[in-house]
Every structure is written in structure tokens, then in C-alpha cells.
């Protein structure tokens, strides 16, 4: 059972998506696990053949519990020694040390063709011990809704909101207890970026349209190249920088709470690819279908309040990360350009970073670099 966040202690196996004897490759989705963050798809780390499953759907398993044996290429059957795959209580590191060959897994979301239910309904069903397969969904497309689940069970107390609130509370309490935060703020003239984007979107068919948030994400990802001390993890009393940029994107969930899965290698994606990745990530955060690696390996997080937020925000670092960048709502304000006051669309940017790793001077230069990149949107 992989750890999918600093404070995850256990998960419940929902279903296996493969069978013993099947061959799997890295990235294959092998199981769905229900956590306090919802149903997550577990990915395979190493190629091989599934030898046997050691857990059954419905079982609640502590982080580190071996769930399956996968025989590696060339290995003999029935390897006797099994090593827990992921270090308990810490997310998997990118490029984590080679695991024992009997490699266990990672996890996922509601598979296509399986029961179609919202994350809230799924969580509720687990709590109330309701079998989703036996319900008839009343939502569009036959989806099972929260009301369907609740209607099918008699009573039930602790709801999904409480579960997710507990997870967020534990992670943020740890953050505030252990991480000496410092905060910086800046204001970015977003007019050049927005005008460039509007012109660009006129040329693009609907599926290729881009949102300004993708420009913000790309600017942060690129700026990190010059500031590695904001990209990585604080583990075992030391900073481990990450050579790759896996950008955590905070997605607020309608049923309450939020989740910040990663867009892998965001710095290397062209804007249209990054936009597609963002759309896909948000869609899966809504419907269930986030993958284990997306939850366990963000190297920094970006949070953006969008259109219905406030002008500025002061984000809290998600451990074991060491920095988080925030963007407020875009506002139109008087601004001085070349000696004249003109109306401009602005966005406030903020950085919370870990003083054990960096200082405000470097933080300021990093945040300024983000703003500078946004002045030349065509280079992003």
C-alpha cells in the first residue's frame, strides 16, 4: 500500500484491475484504492508478471503493506522475501531507490466500464458499507450520486468531508509545526500575457483553447530551473532537490476540501500540452481517476484562486515539499506604464518557502523571475 501523502496511514483496496498471471509494465494501473482523498488508481513501478495478490477488495491496509507479488523479468517464480514497497509515511521520491523485485504497486480511480460514481458517492458508500454495484444511479449517464448512496443506506455519520478535512488538517498541522515558513508577495502585470493569449485563442479550435492559468504554471516551472532550492523534498533532516519539475496543482473539490496532484515534467511541456494535462488532471480529480504517482511526487505546488477568489493569498507548504507559489484573482487596476497611469490587468503572486532550505533573498529573485517570464508569453 503506497503512501499518497505525508499523513496517509492506510487505504482500502477497492478492486484489482489485473489478474494473476498477467504481464504488467511500469505505469499500468493495477488496482483502485480508496483513501481519505478519494479513490486512487495504483500504478505498477516495475515490469513483470503478477504472481499473486495478497490482499482482497474491501481490506483496509496500512501504508507499507505488501498487496501483491510481481515477478520481475527473469526472476524465478515465488520469490519468498517480500519487502514493503514504499517507505511508510513519506511519499515516493522520483527516482526512488530500486525496490525489491517483488515489486508492489500503486493505485487509481474508477476504471472505465466499472461502476460510474462520483468521488463523494464512492467515499460515502465505503463509510456506509454500501455496495455501489447494486445501486442504480440517478445522475446523468446513470452515474451514482451521493443521494443515491445515502438513500440506500439507513443513517450514517462521519461524512466524506470530515475524512478529507482530517487529512488536510494533519498535513497542514505538520507543515506549520515543522516548516519555518517565510512569505513574499509581488504584483505582476498580466496584460501582455492575457493579450497574447486572447489573440492566440482566436486562432485555435475549441479543444485547443488555453487558459491563462497554464501560463502561470509554465512560468513557475521554467523559473525553477534557476532556483533548484525550491523544487524538491525535505526528508530525514535534509533537502533533496529534484532534477525534474512535477508541478502540484491545487484543485478545490466541490464536495469540500482540496487536492494537489502533480503534472509531471511541467517544465518540458509545450503550452498546449500543459493545457491538455491540466484539463485532464482537473477532470480526473472531479470524477476519480487520479494516479498514485500524481499524488505522491509533486516537487512544488502552485495554487491559483481563479475568478472567484481574493486579490492575494498566503499559501501553506505541503510537506515534504519546501515551497508553494500562489496567485490571486486577476484584477483590473490603475498601473503606471512608461510614466502614464493606465488600466491594466494584474495578478498578485506569493511564495511561501522553507527557511531550512532557502532565504528571502533567493525567494524574491525566484518570484521576480516568474513575473519576468510572464512579460514575454510567447517564450513560455
Amino acid at each position: 500500500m503506497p503512501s499518497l501523502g505525508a499523513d496517509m496511514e492506510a487505504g482500502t483496496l477497492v478492486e484489482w484491475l489485473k489478474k494473476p498471471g498477467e504481464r504488467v509494465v511500469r505505469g499500468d494501473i493495477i488496482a483502485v484504492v480508496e483513501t481519505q482523498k478519494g479513490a486512487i488508481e495504483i500504478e505498477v513501478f516495475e515490469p513483470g508478471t503478477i504472481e499473486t495478490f495478497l490482499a482482497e477488495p474491501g481490506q483496509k491496509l496500512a501504508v507499507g503493506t505488501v498487496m501483491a507479488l510481481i515477478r520481475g523479468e527473469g526472476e524465478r517464480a515465488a520469490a519468498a522475501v517480500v519487502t514493503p514497497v514504499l517507505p511508510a509515511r513519506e511519499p515516493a521520491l522520483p527516482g526512488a531507490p530500486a525496490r525489491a523485485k517483488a515489486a508492489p504497486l500503486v493505485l487509481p480511480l474508477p476504471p472505465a466500464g466499472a461502476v460510474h460514481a462520483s468521488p463523494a458517492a464512492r467515499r460515502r458508500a465505503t463509510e456506509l458499507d454500501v455496495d455501489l454495484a447494486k445501486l442504480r444511479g440517478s445522475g446523468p449517464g446513470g452515474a451514482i450520486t451521493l443521494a443515491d448512496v445515502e438513500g440506500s443506506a439507513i443513517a450514517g455519520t462521519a461524512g466524506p468531508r470530515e475524512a478529507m478535512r482530517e487529512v488536510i488538517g494533519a498535513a497542514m498541522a505538520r507543515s506549520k509545526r515543522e516548516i519555518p515558513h517565510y512569505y513574499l508577495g509581488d504584483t505582476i502585470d498580466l496584460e501582455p500575457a492575457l493579450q497574447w493569449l486572447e489573440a492566440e485563442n482566436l486562432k485555435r479550435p475549441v479543444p485547443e483553447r488555453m487558459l491563462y492559468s497554464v501560463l502561470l504554471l509554465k512560468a513557475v516551472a521554467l523559473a525553477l530551473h534557476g532556483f533548484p532550492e525550491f523544487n524538491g523534498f525535505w526528508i530525514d533532516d535534509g533537502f533533496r532537490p529534484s532534477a525534474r519539475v512535477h508541478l502540484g496543482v491545487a484543485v478545490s473539490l466541490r464536495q469540500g476540501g482540496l487536492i494537489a496532484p502533480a503534472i509531471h515534467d511541467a517544465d518540458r511541456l509545450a503550452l498546449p500540452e500543459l493545457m491538455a494535462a491540466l484539463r485532464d488532471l482537473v477532470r480526473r480529480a472531479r470524477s476519480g481517476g487520479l494516479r498514485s504517482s500524481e499524488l505522491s511526487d509533486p516537487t512544488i505546488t502552485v495554487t491559483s484562486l481563479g475568478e472567484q477568489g481574493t486579490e492575494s493569498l498566503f499559501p501553506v507548504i505541503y510537506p515534504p515539499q519546501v515551497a508553494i507559489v500562489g496567485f490571486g484573482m486577476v484584477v483590473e487596476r490603475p498601473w503606471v506604464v512608461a510614466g502614464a497611469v493606465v488600466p491594466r490587468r494584474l495578478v498578485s503572486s506569493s511564495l511561501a518557502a522553507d527557511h531550512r532550505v532557502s532565504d528571502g533573498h533567493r525567494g524574491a529573485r525566484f518570484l521576480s523571475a516568474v513575473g519576468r517570464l510572464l512579460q514575454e508569453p510567447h517564450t513560455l
Partner: protein
Amino acid sequence: MTDEELRKLVLNALASVVPELEEATLVADKSFRDQLDIDSVDFLNYVIALHEALKIDIPEADDPQLSTLNGAVAYLGRRLKKAPSP
């Protein structure tokens, strides 16, 4: 395509971004954003779902017309009359 068919199509597109959508409680002339707490990425995914279902191009400037159930049915009905799908 009848208004009823269009209505179903819009609801399906919406359900692709709001899986927990409760059709019965949706107010037809009130904006999705206000009722469903959808963000800009959700809205874009919804517009793309409409585009893919109907194969019509939708300029960004027309987005506001898609922001309610009634508005979307009326807009798409007009667009389909002018430019029948291939």
C-alpha cells in the same frame, strides 16, 4: 435536433465535468458557475464536450451564452440551424 435532445446533450456535457450533478435541482436559467461551483478548467472541458458532441466551432466570445441550461439549448439550436452538422 429537438430542444429536448439538446437539453440532454448539454446535461451530458455538464455531467462530464460535474459527475455528482443532480439534474432535479438544476435551475435552468441560472448560471452553472453559481450553482455548481465550476471553475474555468471545468467550463472549458464542458465547452469542449459540446463541441465534440455537435462538431460545431464555438468562439470564445460566445461562452457566456453557454453558461445556463436554457441559454445553451437556445444557442446550440440557433447554431445548428445555421450550420447543420456535417
